[in-house]
Every structure is written in structure tokens, then in C-alpha cells.
């Protein structure tokens, strides 16, 4: 779930008409000073970080005057908390709090609906209150088609003992919170605490919200760069990976970095899984051999070969891995030769200079294994391919053995690419561009591209391969980016086929710029 900072979540509450403290976002101590001067008197300086217990970590501080606010801001900014650097502050008026409550919305799998949760006692330790005294907490299912009315909110407040003005104001707040959560596609939205001030106002003193990753596309206004569940901001490479995935709904590509700044020989493996359950088992198999993982990657749900290729390139871009391990459930339904071709294209262009063990079991695994084995002799490092009858543990021990036997790479080998086209025939695909070098095609005896093209969109025209559909159709998905016209042509043809699959931002990461 993509998380929002407190100041972002509060902005959403305010839009919906929920009262929030007067506050100003600051990114430098000077801005904090100005903010404090503007707000007047005592302020709270709150470091913006996705962690719990901010107060006990010194990220929430009370200042009596602007000068003190500036000094506190300087102390908080730049702090490292659980791998997270505090870069933003929220400077707010200090509230005169009379009473604290809790209000939250969470999507509940059992109810198949959002639940609205209200507690007449808020603040820290709300979980303990919930487990010790369940009656102090009220829950109601929200009907997503109808919304949650203020009267329902009042009823919920009443069930926890509220009355009078508190009940009235809280009913209104709860109804609005439900609306905010739904319109922001929030998996959870919590106000803890909701406070009653000395002035008789109900104010959201803090707020955390997590947005459904799958709905981030509906919310450009939230400025979520990477719609992934991280407990820290995304790395630059994770951002690059997300750009590959964002608009491409063909299969799934998930990428998270688990080790950074590692060196060759430290036993860090590039991990490429397929499918959640199978990937976890495969990860465990590598970990049992005492390796560390650079990343967790999952390409599944029948992704095109192009997506698997990009995933592999991004895995390599992380740094000097000692081996490459790809393994999923072992009995995949997707045609595994797509993944095989994606990997082979990456291994040739990289090219692969550390041992790789690839377990592509499942549908059409024989073809997948054959494609990988065909590429193996061309590569500077050993590559072995396995199928569904070879366990993840067996494959992990193969990788372990290969790493022990293979000398560590010293120089970066040259990419293995087809020669530059002299007579290019080109067409665009959904995410790239195909080039067939007709000069090479003329001398090609096999014309293997025509036969192996998965969507069958190539035909011979005057002895040369051309599209049998319109360019427009090819660009809109007629070409499925199966990569046969590059990979199969490289093996069996005149090496005239190439598909350019740009990965925006990757070159910068690879050169470390």
C-alpha cells in the first residue's frame, strides 16, 4: 500500500470538511521558523515519516517560540529512522486537548467491505484498549454503494458512550472520514487521536492513510511515485522498475531491493521469482544455502517476454551479484518460453558474467529449457535450466556449486548483439520497436522469425519478412513482444532481428550517475 504522509492525509481530511489544526509544511529550519511565526505562540514540529511512535523517537516536539521551533526543526530534519530520512516537517498550532478519541476505516477481507472503527478512548495504546475492553470500541460495516451517513456515525458514537455535542460532531466526522477513505481508495485511514479541544471543537490531530496500490492510477493528485508497499521511500531503481510496470497490465512485475552497496564475492544473489507462493519457497531455498538476496522480483500472470527482459536488466543493474537465480512454483500455467526468451535477450545483452540457474517449470517447459540451453554456450558464465521435476532446493545447490567453481568476473564483457542494421525494416510495438535488417534477411535461409512469431504477424513479401497486419495494429498489441524475431533469429537465422525495449532511467542507474 502506498502510504501518505500526515500532511498529505490531513489535506484530504480538510477537503472533506474535517477540521485539522492550522499547519504549514516546512522543508528547512528557516521555513519552520517562518511557519512558527505565522502560526504564533506555541507550535508542534512534526517530522514526516512512515513510522509508528514518532513522539518517542523525538520526531514530534513542542516549541514555545519560533526560535525554538527552528532549532528543533534542524534536529529533526535529516534524521534516519528505520532506513527513512526525514525530509519534511509539519509545523502546527498546539491544541488545548480536553479528550482524545480514535476513528479509523479499514478494508476488511471477511466483511468484503470497509469497516468504520470508533473508540471513545484514543491516543497511543489503542490496540491494548481494544483487546482489554472490546466494548469501548464500536465497529460498523460501510456500504460502499450507499456511503456512511451522519446518523450512522452518531449511532456508532452513542454505542461507545458519547452524548451531546461530542456525539453530534463525531457523527459528522465519521461520515466524512468514510467518504474520504472511499474517494481516496484508502486501504486504511486513521485519525488517532481525534481530539476535543478546550474550545469545543473536534479536530483531527494526526492522520495516517494507505492507498490501494491498484487504484493509484486514479489519483495523480496524490503524487505517489511508486505504487508499492514499502516501509521506506522507493529506491531509484525501484522507481525505474515501477515505470516499467505502471501502464503495462500484461502480467505482473514486482521489484523490491533487499540489499544495497554490496560487493562482488559477498554472496549476494539476483533473485527472479514467478508467482507469490512459489517465489517464497524458492527464496527460502537460496537462503538455506547461506546466500543473501539483492532483491525480490516476481514476474508472473503471463507477462510478455519484454517485461521479463526488463526485469532481468533491472536485477543486473543493482550491482555486482554473484549469481542469478530464477525459480517460481515450478508448475506454471503461463507458456514458459516467453520468460526464457526475455531472460536470454537480457543475458546476451548484459551479457551474463556470473552463474545463473533458471527453473522454468510448467507449461511448455521443454521449449523454455531448450531456448536457455541454446544460449548457454554463447555466454561468458555458466547457465543451467531446469523444469518442474527439479526442486528449488536442488536448483539452489546447483547455483551454489556453480558459484564455487566459477572464477569471479574481472572485466565487463561486451554485449552480444546482432550487427547494426544496414537495411532496417522497422515497426513500433506497445513498449518498443522492432528492427528487421532486410539486408541480413535476404541471406537468411530459415526465415525462422515467421514461423516462431507467437502472434503470427509476419509474412514474406518478395522473400523478406514484413508485417501481415497494419503498423497501427502492431503498435496496439498485435505485436505481443514475444521476442522470437530477435532470439530465434539470433540462434537460427541471419541475426537480422532486434527489438529495442527502452527502460527509462536505467542507463543512469547502471553508470551510477
Amino acid at each position: 500500500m502506498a502510504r501518505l504522509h500526515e500532511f498529505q492525509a490531513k489535506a484530504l481530511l480538510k477537503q472533506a470538511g474535517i477540521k485539522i489544526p492550522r499547519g504549514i509544511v516546512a522543508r528547512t529550519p528557516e521555513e519552520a521558523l517562518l511557519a512558527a511565526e505565522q502560526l504564533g505562540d506555541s507550535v508542534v514540529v512534526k517530522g514526516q515519516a512512515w513510522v509508528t511512535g514518532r513522539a518517542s523517537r523525538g520526531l514530534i516536539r513542542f516549541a514555545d517560540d519560533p526560535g525554538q521551533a527552528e532549532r528543533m526543526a534542524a534536529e529533526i530534519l535529516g534524521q534516519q529512522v528505520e532506513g527513512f530520512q526525514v525530509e519534511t516537517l509539519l509545523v502546527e498550532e498546539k491544541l488545548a486537548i480536553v479528550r482524545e478519541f480514535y476513528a479509523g476505516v479499514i478494508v476488511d477481507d471477511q466483511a468484503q467491505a470497509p469497516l468504520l472503527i470508533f473508540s471513545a478512548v484514543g491516543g497511543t495504546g489503542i490496540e491494548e484498549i481494544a483487546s482489554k475492553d472490546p466494548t469501548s470500541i464500536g465497529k460498523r460495516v460501510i456500504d460502499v454503494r450507499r456511503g456512511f451517513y451522519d446518523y450512522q456515525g452518531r449511532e456508532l458514537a452513542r454505542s461507545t458512550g458519547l452524548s451531546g455535542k461530542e456525539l453530534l460532531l463525531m457523527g459528522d466526522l465519521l461520515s466524512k472520514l468514510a467518504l474520504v477513505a472511499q474517494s481516496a481508495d484508502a486501504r486504511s485511514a486513521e485519525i488517532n487521536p481525534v481530539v476535543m479541544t478546550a474550545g469545543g471543537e473536534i479536530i483531527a490531530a494526526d492522520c495516517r492513510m494507505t492507498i490501494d496500490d491498484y487504484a493509484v492510477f486514479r489519483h495523480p493528485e496524490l503524487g505517489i511515485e511508486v505504487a508499492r508497499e514499502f516501509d521506506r521511500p522507493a529506491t531509484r531503481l525501484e522507481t525505474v522498475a515501477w515505470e516499467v510496470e505502471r501502464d503495462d497490465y500484461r502480467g505482473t512485475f514486482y521489484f523490491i531491493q533487499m540489499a544495497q552497496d554490496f560487493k562482488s564475492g559477498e554472496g549476494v544473489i539476483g533473485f527472479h521469482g514467478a508467482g507469490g507462493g512459489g517465489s517464497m519457497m524458492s527464496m527460502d531455498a537460496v537462503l538455506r544455502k547461506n546466500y543473501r538476496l539483492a532483491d525480490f522480483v516476481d514476474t508472473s500472470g503471463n507477462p510478455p517476454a519484454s517485461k521479463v527482459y526488463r526485469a532481468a536488466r533491472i536485477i543486473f543493474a543493482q550491482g555486482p551479484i554473484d549469481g542469478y537465480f530464477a525459480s517460481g512454483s515450478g508448475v506454471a500455467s503461463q507458456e514458459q518460453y516467453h520468460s526464457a526468451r526475455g531472460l536470454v535477450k537480457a543475458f546476451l545483452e548484459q551479457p551474463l558474467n556470473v552463474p545463473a540457474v533458471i527453473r522454468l517449470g510448467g507449461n511448455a517447459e521443454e521449449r523454455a529449457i531448450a531456448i536457455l540451453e541454446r544460449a548457454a554456450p554463447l555466454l561468458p558464465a555458466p547457465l543451467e535450466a531446469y523444469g518442474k521435476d527439479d526442486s528449488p532446493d536442488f536448483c539452489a545447490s546447483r547455483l551454489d556449486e556453480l558459484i564455487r567453481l566459477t572464477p569471479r568476473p574481472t572485466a565487463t564483457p561486451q554485449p552480444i548483439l546482432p550487427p547494426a542494421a544496414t537495411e532496417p525494416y522497422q515497426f513500433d510495438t506497445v513498449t518498443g520497436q522492432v528492427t528487421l535488417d532486410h539486408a541480413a534477411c535476404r541471406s537468411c535461409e530459415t526465415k525462422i522469425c515467421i514461423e516462431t512469431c507467437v502472434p503470427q504477424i509476419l509474412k514474406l513479401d518478395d522473400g523478406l519478412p514484413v508485417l501481415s497486419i497494419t503498423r497501427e495494429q502492431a503498435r496496439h498489441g498485435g505485436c505481443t513482444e514475444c521476442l522470437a524475431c530477435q532470439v530465434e533469429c539470433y540462434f537460427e537465422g541471419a541475426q537480422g532481428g532486434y527489438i529495442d525495449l527502452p527502460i527509462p532511467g536505467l542507463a543512469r542507474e547502471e553508470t551510477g550517475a
Partner: protein
Amino acid sequence: MAILVDEGKRVLVQGITGREGRTRTNLMVEFGTQVVAGVTPGKGRQEVDGVPVYDTVFEAVEVCGSIDISVLFIPAPLVKSAALEAIEAGIKLLLIVPDRVPIYDVLEIAASAKDADARFIGPNTLGVLSPARATIGMIGGSATTAREWFIPGPLGISSRSGGITSSMAYYLARAGLGASTLVHVGGDAVIGTPHPDVMRMFEADPDTKAMVMFGEIGGSQEERVAELVAKGEITKPIIAFIGGKAAKRGTRFSHAGAIVEGTRGTYEGKVESLRTAGVTVVEAFGDLPEVTRRVLQEREVL
């Protein structure tokens, strides 16, 4: 008997002319599923694998008569509308294949399905397959592999992971243990037909003698299965494996998650509640076939 799908069910494919729709229609038809119609708005009057394509679900129902199941191969952002269309057209079982369907869309589909007395499986599901009978979705990928991998038998298989659905069934079949039906319930946080529902269906199916379940950390599905067993609503033996033991404890929804879930959702919590209820929990995935065989022998099914 089998659950959810068999050769008697009349199936519609929404999104039949797309990349996945086409490929998996071929799988379903070749496997023996009665695919009677397809729908892609704007592409009516075409044919895919001999299956007529219509512009709307209502048109398909008008022309072809009643339809039991709709299988959705639709890009995630468009799933809600397609699912509501199928429900409104009177279809009682939906299989929602795509990944990345927004969760509030799923909640709205769930609310409409409940009103219409309809059920959905998924989203993010590989599908359902009853060996030697019929299949919906994309389990096996092609009819040839699906026939080769899966054999009929006494086990009801239910899984939260697509790949593991096939691999469990395959490794069990290799050990001579066939299945009545395999169900991938879907990988998302909110799904239409979770493990407890599937277990109830298997309990009621005379051909199913025992269930094999792949659970995962997070959510409450496995705990709810344990409750059903403890209450005596499920009496057939269950053999379970829970994935994610080594995974870092999942990110919780902060306070709200803790209030709603308590200790549910963790590996230890799931294993304990299942074991306490009398479910056999297997620690190593590779042991599943052997343990399953032993349980079946103890219960004198084999």
C-alpha cells in the same frame, strides 16, 4: 461430482478477443468446457475458436440462453463495469482472472453479487479446474498440459497462490493422488470466494474425501477454516501448508489492522489455530504428497 465447474456448465468469456482471452478460450474449449459465447464490446459478430462473440453480455444471454459462468479476461481498470454487467445479466458465478483490480471496485462487485445471490472467484485467480471434466480460467495454460498434469481423484485442492495450485495438484498426481476440483481462490486481499467457502463446498461434495489447502500469511481465511473445523461444520480431513514462514512480518494496517485482526494473520497464529482444530499442517512443501496419502489411509479412503 466436482465443485464450481463441470462439463454441464455453460460458460461465457468476457474479453474473449484479447491476448489472454483468446489463448485461454482455446484451453477451455479443448479441455471440454462448454464455452457458449464470448463478449468484447465493439467486436460482436466475430468468432474465437468457433465461439460466437457478442457486443454485450445481455446480447449473449438473449441469443444463447442461460449462462452459468462468466470468465473475465479484462484489463483491471475495466473489471468493475464488466462484472456488474454480468451480474445484472443474471449470471450467478463469475471468475475474475486479472491482477491489480482496485480494492473498492472489488467491494462494489461483492455488494452487488450479494444482492443478486451471485458468487465470484478472484480477482487475481488462475481459475478452477475439475480434472477430466472442465476448467475455467488458465490453469495448466493449454489443454494438453492440463490433461497431462491433473488426474481425477478424491482430493479437493484450494490455494491462495496460482502457481502452487498447479504444483500441489501436479506433485500429488505424480504420487497417484488425483483431485475432484482445484480452486485458486485468488491472490488479493479481498476475494469473492475465500478458503472457508471452498471448504464448505468440498464438504458437501460426495466425491471429495479430503482437502489440501495452501494458505499464506495475512488475512483471516485460514483461521476461519479452523473455526469451521472446530465447530464441526467441516468433518473431512484437511491437510494444509502455510506459505510465508520466513517472510518478514507483513506490514500491518497500523492500529486499525491490529484492532480488527488481533493475532490473526501471522504464520504462527494460523498454524496454531489450524492444528488446535485438528487440521494436519505440513511444514515442508515436499512432504505434502506423503502426508496426504497417510491421512487418506488413516481415514480408509485409500
